[in-house]
């Protein structure tokens, strides 16, 4: 249980940092991960030992993924009013994101592990993690690349959308949420309530869509 304690305290340190530094890079998961990684390297504790010790924490991931239904249900009025823009925009964005991640990774001859892990990068990390047994990706790599994808998205996507003259908060939100999931949604919320709401919808839809894509395409692989 000592590593559960270290992980909790490292995450709390990350949340405190986020309160003081308003930057997408001050992300509690990123900071928590780096602190725990440093602690493991310093104490020379192997990753497998750590993973076994923190199992109680990982067990909460399954109900947390189910809980994503709540924001989707709460926003049902918005979804009903603007379903064409949100559904078609979001699903297109996620599909293209998965396609580029898959095809470009293949074109660049990345290692098989990296190729498989990149399939799920546009889905929120817990979903990427739960999909790893089906894509045959190393779970750690799938989760890490998904977090990185959210971080980079939160950093670059607002500027991209402004450059493309996408000004409507709902359009900006669905674009960010459909590929940059949780971290992106946190950033989108800073732009306003509507942007955050649309981003939550994008994240929820991406979780479902990436799962379906993996079921149809990835799951049939070796």
């Amino acid at each position, binding site marked *: 249980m000592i590593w559960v304690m270290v992980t909790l305290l490292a995450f709390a340190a990350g949340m405190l940092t986020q309160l003081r530094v308003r930057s997408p890079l001050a992300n509690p998961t990123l900071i928590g991960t780096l602190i725990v990684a440093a602690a493991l390297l310093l104490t020379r504790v192997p*990753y497998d030992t750590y993973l076994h010790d923190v199992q109680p924490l990982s067990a*909460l991931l399954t109900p947390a993924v189910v809980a994503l239904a*709540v924001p989707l249900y709460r926003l049902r009025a918005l979804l009903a009013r603007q379903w064409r823009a949100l559904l078609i925009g979001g699903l297109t964005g996620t599909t293209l994101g998965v396609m580029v*991640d898959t095809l470009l990774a293949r074109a660049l001859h990345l290692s098989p592990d990296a190729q498989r892990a990149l399939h799920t990068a546009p889905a929120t990390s817990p979903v990427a993690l739960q999909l790893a047994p089906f894509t045959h990706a190393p779970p750690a790599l799938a989760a890490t690349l998904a977090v990185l994808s959210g971080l980079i998205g939160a950093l670059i996507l607002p500027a991209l959308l402004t450059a493309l003259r996408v000004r*409507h908060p709902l359009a900006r939100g669905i674009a960010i949420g459909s590929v940059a999931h949780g971290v992106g949604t946190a950033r989108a919320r800073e732009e306003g309530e509507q942007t955050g709401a649309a981003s939550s919808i994008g994240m929820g839809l991406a979780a479902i869509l990436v*799962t379906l894509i993996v079921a149809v395409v990835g799951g049939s692989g070796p």
Partner: protein
Amino acid sequence: MTSGSVTARLPAPARFVLGLGLLLAFAAAGQALTGALGLPLPGSVVGLVLLWAALGLKLVRLHWITDAADGLLGILGLLFIPATVGFLQFLSAGAAWGLWVLVMTAGLLVGAGAAGLLASRLLRPEDS
């Protein structure tokens, strides 16, 4: 909280426990369904869809699960730290990380760019 039902008057800790139990029940139901049908899907995502449907059909009341759901989603970032710490196993990939970041950045730009442009054209104007 709008309804005058007994459950709306449950104290918050009891609602939290009820909610967590229900979330686990839907996860288990999703797991059972994927297992029975042999679907290549994680049970938790199927549980998400089942819960969404149950809320829509009013089989599950929103206030039964909000406390637990908001609590878990509030610390979602904590729950996958055990997995992300596993990047330690891939430190030896070294320069390859640059290519991985390049690929996902391309995916982000193309996906979000298309979604943003498409959504702004499809938005119904009355809502702004």
